Structures are given as C-alpha cells and as structure tokens.
C-alpha cells in the first residue's frame, strides 16, 4: 500500500493494482478491511474520487466487497481470483510484448525457448 505512484498509467489503475499486489503478498488478508478512499487519498495526495474509482473496479470484480457503514473488505477467495485473472492476462501483458521485441531484433523462437530454459536452469544451480 505504500508504493510510489508513477506517470505511466492512470492513478486509479495503479491504486487498484497496488491493492491486488498487497493481497497477493498477504499484506492485506481476506476478510480484512482495506484503507478507505479518504485514507488512500490522504496517503497519496490524490483526489478521493480517483481513489474510489480504483477501489470500485475491485468491487466490480468481486475482489473487494462493501460492508455498509464500515468500509471495504477483501473478499474470501480474492487472492486466488487475482492469481487466476493475472494468469489469464499473462500472455497479453508479458509474452506478447516479449515476442514483438524479439521479432524486432530477429531473435528466433528457438533462441527464446533456450533463454527461458537457461534462466530456469540458472536458478536451480544457485
């Protein structure tokens, strides 16, 4: 929840992804209250409406839920849901960009596979 905001994408998306990361890292636990939009606004010096936009996206996805009069909570199963969603987007978000850059540089598919295998091998040897 304390990461720095950058200018590479919309602030509310960064707020959303930061909450997701905190859930993945067990900084925020399921069935636990998340900071309110006003708390987020003050922490990051951003407009509360912007913070709310990020939080509401997570409500729409069922990652967070609202307890009336108390605040926002992490839903049961949120961690697994985020992992599942990120796995589904992994090709689009990471692999596609890598393939495009590989094509620009003339790196073949075989070379790419070799790199991945080599990296994994390196880790095993550590």
């Amino acid at each position, binding site marked *: 929840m304390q990461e720095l*905001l950058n*200018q*590479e*994408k*919309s*602030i*509310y998306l960064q707020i959303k992804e930061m909450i997701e990361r905190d859930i993945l890292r067990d900084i925020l636990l399921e069935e636990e209250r998340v900071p309110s939009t*006003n708390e987020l*606004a*003050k922490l*990051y*010096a*951003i*407009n*509360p*409406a*912007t913070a709310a*936009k990020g939080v509401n996206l997570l409500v729409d996805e069922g990652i967070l839920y609202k307890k009336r009069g108390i605040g926002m909570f992490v839903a049961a199963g949120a961690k697994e849901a985020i992992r599942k969603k990120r796995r589904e987007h992994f090709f689009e978000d990471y692999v596609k960009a890598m393939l*495009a850059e590989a094509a620009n540089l003339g790196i073949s598919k075989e070379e790419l596979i070799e790199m991945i295998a080599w990296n994994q091998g390196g880790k095993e040897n550590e």
Partner: protein
Amino acid sequence: MSEKILQCRGIVKEYRKQEVLHNIDLTLEQGKIYGLIGRNGAGKTTLLSILSAQNPATSGDVLLNGEKVWENSRALEEIFFSREISPNAVGDSSGLRVKDYLEMAEAYLPKWDKNMAEELVELFHLDKKKKTLKLSKGMLSMLSIVLALASKAEFTFMDEPVSGLDVVAREQFYRLLLEEFTESGRTFVISTHIIEEAADLFEEVIFLHEGRILLKENTQELLEHSIYVSGRAEEVDEAVKGKEIHHQEILGRSKSVMVRLKEGETLNQTQGITLQPMNLQKVFVSLCAGEEE
C-alpha cells in the same frame, strides 16, 4: 443540505477597453477540487475575483443556486477568494502584521475557524507579530493558505497557493488540503503553475487560455483520452487520421503528435508507432501550442 452550484454566464471583463475575459460560462459543483490552469495573463486571477464578487464583470452574471452573488451578502458568505498577498498593494503601505490579517478575516468571514487558523499558523511557524512587508514570498503564501482553509467558505478559491513554497511545504499543503476536503467536502478552485505536483488532487481541470475556457474536464478522463503518438511520419499520419490532433512536430522522417480521443474512440497500435500516455502538463502545453499556431 442540498447541492450548491456556482455558475457564471457570459462573463466579459474589460480593463481600459481591452477585453481580458471573453464570454465565460462555467459551472462549479459543490464537493469537488478544481484545478485552474493557465499561462501568465490568461485571466485566472480576474476570473476568480469576479466569481467571488471582489471585482465587477463588465457584463454577465455570477449565480449561486440561481441567485446573483453581486452585493448579495447571504450568497457571499459561501464564497471566499484568498488572493495572493502582496504587501505593496494599496492599503497596506502602513505595514499590516500577520495578526492584523487574521483579525480582519475573523471580522469579515462568518464561518471563520479560529482554532484551525491558530493551528495552521503554528504549523507553518508564522510569526503573528511580523509585518507582512517583512515576510518572504513563501511565508506570504502560507498566510494566504491559512486564510483560505480557515475561512471554511463552501466555495474557496486559491490563487497560486504554493508559489514560493519549498517542496516540503508544498507537499504539506497538498495533504492539508486533502484532509480538509475529505472532512468537509468543501469546494476548492486552485490555480497553479506547478501542474504535475497537483494534477492528482484535481477531480476536474479547467484550462484557461487567453481569456477563454479551452477545456473543463474530469482530470483522469482527460489523461486517458490524451495520447502521444510518435514514429515514422507516414505511419503516424495513418494512425491518427480522422482524430483530433494537436501540436505536431516533425524531425526528419519522424513525427510526433498529441491525439485527443473522443468517448469511444481508440487508436490502433501498429508496429511502426509508439503510443504513450501524457501527463497533465504535457497535455496543457500541447493544447496551448495548438491555439497559438
């Protein structure tokens, strides 16, 4: 409490036959922080002074919930414009002290929060006995911030509140502003030249350029719809065909352009071009450059 709306319609302002504001229509809704962005001389201070009835418009009306605010003390209780304090201004040649300003504010502002003012004076280490003539630019800004926040006016306007403040004091101000905003839901209009620092504070931005409103939009939507496209000139042209474009620049075979997408429009990423998000400052510069071409 019902939602209040401050509106101006057809505001024109002339100074010595020269028109500085041209037919301004603007609606401010309660409970938002607005950023007022414009170059020097764009008319920001004049507009704020007219909206707060400190300065008469040559023509046009300012209305709070449909009621004219000019000489309307009930409406004016809700509106306060904390001007930049310049001790050389007429009427201040006798050398007013910080505490004189605070006492005047207490006398004139019906919702004045004395405790808050005292706390802020302490927080900023303002010496109440000091003459404003002896204050630095930053100290004057702090005094102006104290007046604005403690005024508790529903519509509070601040003109360059951070000018002359060091970076730590600026960040302190942004947090104070958000604290007050989240607690009170008051409406703030803040003009600034340090756009990037404050961009995320503003729910909406108003770009004022040469006495006209160039744009008033939700900040996040404006940024999402503003895309910087660069690459080989022909491919850039192909990608942005039919779109609203601004600020084209050509260097050899390469070209860059700002695209402002309309609701529902998208740009196609192709191999030969780069699409990048823009920050508010870049968007403002690109739009102004377009106007001046």
